[in-house]
């Protein structure tokens, strides 16, 4: 793709727009710029005062402040986990800002029109249509998309605060609540109180506990019984301020018989110093409900020498509480210097289903330790894991997963496939699966392969006139196709392009 950068002449039959699109994709990290905007910071470091301050800024009720404080007290006694196959310098938790928000958000904007245009410009630049319908242009084979385009409601989180949520009125008509979690704590305390921390308890792990104490914002979704959410919901996370950690918390509740598809995207500016991102996502799925959660994680991965980047320590878990509940995690992990993330499924209800599709790409000095947990508790539960790991440069990529069949999970089924692809001789690909089968009516199958990009396939592509990087990108896209197919279309396009970008410079 770099070949196109220098190409001045456009070949016949290729329009200028296509070339520009490809050129824009070919940059190393597309979202590395930062928005010059006046920020409000809480003092550096974390302590009970900061916890209280964050709680105060969000105008939270006392029970919420207490909840945070008890999490903080617990966190102080915890030690950072070291079991993951990632290495990074010790994090100074007192040398971070735990709260930063644009000054213009001091007075809560009444509608999107009141939002600082600079912020809106930021999101526009990121390609997030906050105000308008997103129209899919030039997507081939998009027959199932209505001609007027598809609606996607967006909640945009800028550093520590949510700057706006679109389509709220329309969603309200359907009974769906989609707002920032700070708003939900104020407006729907009964729901938050009932569900918050029930899937990922504040004591869960070091990073989740820290998040429970200092989370500043995030998204909240409630889909009432029997409602099929009329549009896809999406949250866009942007870290902008320097030395600032982002701690968002997402809570999704799909009540009986409902359906929702949720998309998550993330970016951050290029900086020399590393930044911390420790999020928690909790999903509760009641009887017959279904949730699809798709992530394209494109945090700044650090430069080609491994300087800077985001430390991404995320706890995501879905609890299929009711019978026949269904959850599907799809993730494309291309960014972050260090990724530590295991979206999990607790299959508690009988006949519930969990699926996990993942592409993790690590290039340069990136390190990814990611996977899933499938905990089968109910009868006839099913789970499927498809994980594709790609390592290039000097990166290390680990799949770590647990499949657990409890004695009562009769007639359950798991299929796991994790494949790793190595590009270049300085990277590593690792697989660490845990398989625990405690009954004999369940079937568990696990297979994993590790190989390099096939020379014959590369040769074929080269012979057809592709340069080496294009050929590798094509082969890798083919390697990932099972996961790409599981993504909602908007994301699939973006992910496919990202796969190519993330591997820039990995050949030759």
């Amino acid at each position, binding site marked *: 793709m770099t070949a196109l950068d220098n190409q001045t002449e456009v070949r016949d039959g290729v329009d200028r727009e296509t070339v520009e699109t490809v050129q824009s994709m070919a940059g190393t990290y597309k979202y590395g710029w930062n928005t010059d905007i006046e920020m409000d910071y809480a003092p550096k470091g974390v302590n009970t005062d900061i916890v209280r301050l964050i709680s105060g800024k969000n105008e939270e009720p006392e029970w919420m402040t207490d909840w945070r404080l008890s999490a903080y007290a617990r966190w102080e006694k915890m030690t950072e986990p070291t*079991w993951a*196959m990632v290495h990074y310098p010790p994090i100074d938790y007192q040398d971070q800002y735990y709260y930063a928000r644009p000054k213009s958000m001091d007075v809560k904007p009444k509608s999107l029109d009141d939002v600082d245009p600079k912020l809106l410009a930021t999101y526009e630049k990121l390609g997030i249509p906050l105000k308008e319908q997103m129209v899919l242009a030039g997507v081939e084979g998009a027959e199932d998309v209505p001609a007027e385009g598809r609606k996607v409601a967006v909640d945009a989180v800028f550093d520590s605060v949510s700057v706006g949520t679109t389509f709220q009125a329309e969603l309200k008509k359907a009974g769906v609540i989609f707002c920032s979690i700070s708003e939900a704590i104020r407006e729907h305390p009964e729901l938050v109180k009932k569900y918050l921390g029930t899937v990922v308890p504040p004591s869960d792990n070091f990073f989740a506990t820290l998040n429970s104490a200092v989370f500043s914002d995030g998204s909240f979704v409630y889909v009432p019984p029997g409602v099929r959410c009329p549009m896809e919901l999406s949250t866009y996370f942007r870290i902008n301020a320097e030395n600032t950690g982002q701690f968002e918390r997402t809570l999704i509740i799909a009540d009986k018989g409902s359906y929702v598809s949720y998309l998550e995207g993330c970016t951050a500016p290029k900086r020399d110093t590393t930044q911390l991102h420790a999020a928690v996502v909790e999903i509760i799925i009641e009887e017959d409900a279904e949730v699809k959660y798709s992530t394209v994680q494109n945090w700044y991965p650090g430069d080609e020498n491994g300087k800077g980047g985001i430390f991404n320590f995320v706890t995501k878990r879905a609890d299929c509480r009711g019978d026949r509940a269904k959850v599907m995690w799809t993730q494309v992990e291309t960014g972050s210097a260090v990724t530590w993330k295991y979206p999990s499924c607790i299959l508690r209800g009988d006949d519930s289903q969990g699926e996990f599709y993942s592409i993790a790409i690590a290039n340069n000095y990136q390190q990814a330790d990611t996977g899933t947990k499938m905990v089968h508790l109910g009868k006839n539960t099913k789970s499927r894991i498809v994980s594709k790991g790609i390592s290039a440069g000097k990166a290390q990529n680990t799949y770590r997963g647990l499949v657990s069949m409890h*004695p009562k999970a*009769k007639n359950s089924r798991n299929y796991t496939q994790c494949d*790793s692809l*190595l*590009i*270049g*001789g*300085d*990277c*590593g*690909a*690792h*697989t*660490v*699966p*845990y*398989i*625990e*089968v*405690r*009954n*004999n*009516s*369940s*079937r*568990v*199958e*696990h*297979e*994993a*392969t*590790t*190989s*390099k990009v096939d020379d014959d396939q590369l040769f074929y592509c080269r012979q057809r006139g592709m340069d080496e990087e294009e050929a590798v990108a094509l082969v890798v896209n083919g390697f990932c196709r099972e996961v790409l197919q599981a993504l909602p279309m908007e994301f699939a396009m973006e992910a496919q392009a990202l796969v190519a970008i993330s591997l820039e410079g990995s050949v030759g």
Partner: protein
Amino acid sequence: MALSQPKDAGVVALIDALGAVSDTGCLAAARADALTRVRATGLPTRRDEYWRYTRPDTLTQAEVPTAAVFAHDDAPMFGEIDQVRLVFVDGVFDPAASDDPALAGIVIERLAEVQQRDIHWAKEVYGKLETAGQTPVARPLAALNTAFATDGIVLHVTGKAGKPVSISYLHENDTSDAILHHVIRIDAGADLTLLEQGPGAARLNKVMEVEIGDGGAFHHVQAQGRDHERRAVTHTFARLGTESRFKSFTLTVNGVMTRNECIIELTGDDAVAHVAGASVGDGNFHHDDTVFVTHDALNCESRQVFKKVLRNGATGVFQGKILVKKDAQKTDGYQISQALLLDGDSQFLAKPELEIYADDVVCSHGSTSGAIDTDSLFYLRSRGVPVAEATDLMTLAFLAEAIDEIDDPALAADLLSRLQGWLARRRS
């Protein structure tokens, strides 16, 4: 450091119970070093990631849990095979029951005698492979063995050994605690078949260090005895030179606690290492296969094939790892672990790992667990095969892939008949 307190106390108690470490002879330095290491690491506890699925307490407690001597009228294992038989009774060498150790192409000595000498080649191997095998994961019970081993066999294979060497471990005392350490050096181009059988003691801690020179070959077949209450922890450390071959197969039938660790390092190009095992357990049975294969040379091949048949609450564990170092290009690594659960109470716990730092490799692993396939069972029954027979037939077919790893058809047939015996006893 509240957590490490009981760990330290455990080490002290066990070391006290084992007595003083021998401080004379050519192995004294290795023993002292091992003692220092085991003091530093402490003994394994359930909290250790490496002991996640197996409770080490009965292996590490100072007092030996009793194991009644199990009487059976089975014909001796490998009885039909011409062999040099060496016998240990509760960890003590029995010269009267053993054959004359003189054999072409091989020098057989006892560790208890070798260690009294000041100069012996065993010094270059004893504790050395074990020490190398302590990273990246500590194996304190192996270090403990190096420090306290009372006896063992020291083998130097200089050519093609005339016949297999067999070691029988007899168990005659309900509370015996045996610590045996074998040292084997196979010279370039030399070849040895080693057979091991029997429970050994109420509690057996066995280490075997095998150094295989360029082009050498080591065939190993082991059967761990039918005693129900015995406990065993074994470590096999092997280092392979260029174009050498290592093939090991272990059959485990019964035993309340077995942990077999196999640590293999492929250091010469084009070497081949196969480790396989079949275990069948009924009731109070815990069997753990832990394998760590390190590829550190070009174009090597490794296989791990483990099959477990479990019933009545038996537990099978498999922890396998293939580590491919950066320069170990053209590696071919394969690992399969499968469990057949014959009823709802048994469990299979597995952690099959790959850690790969070289790009031109083909590595894969598979792991499955489930009950007997009802469709196949139905097919056999519809052809007039009674259900019990059909189940046995399918169980043996399931175990076949592991048994196929044994090159010698006579040995494979012997092991197969033992498995048939186990199944037949369960049927009556």
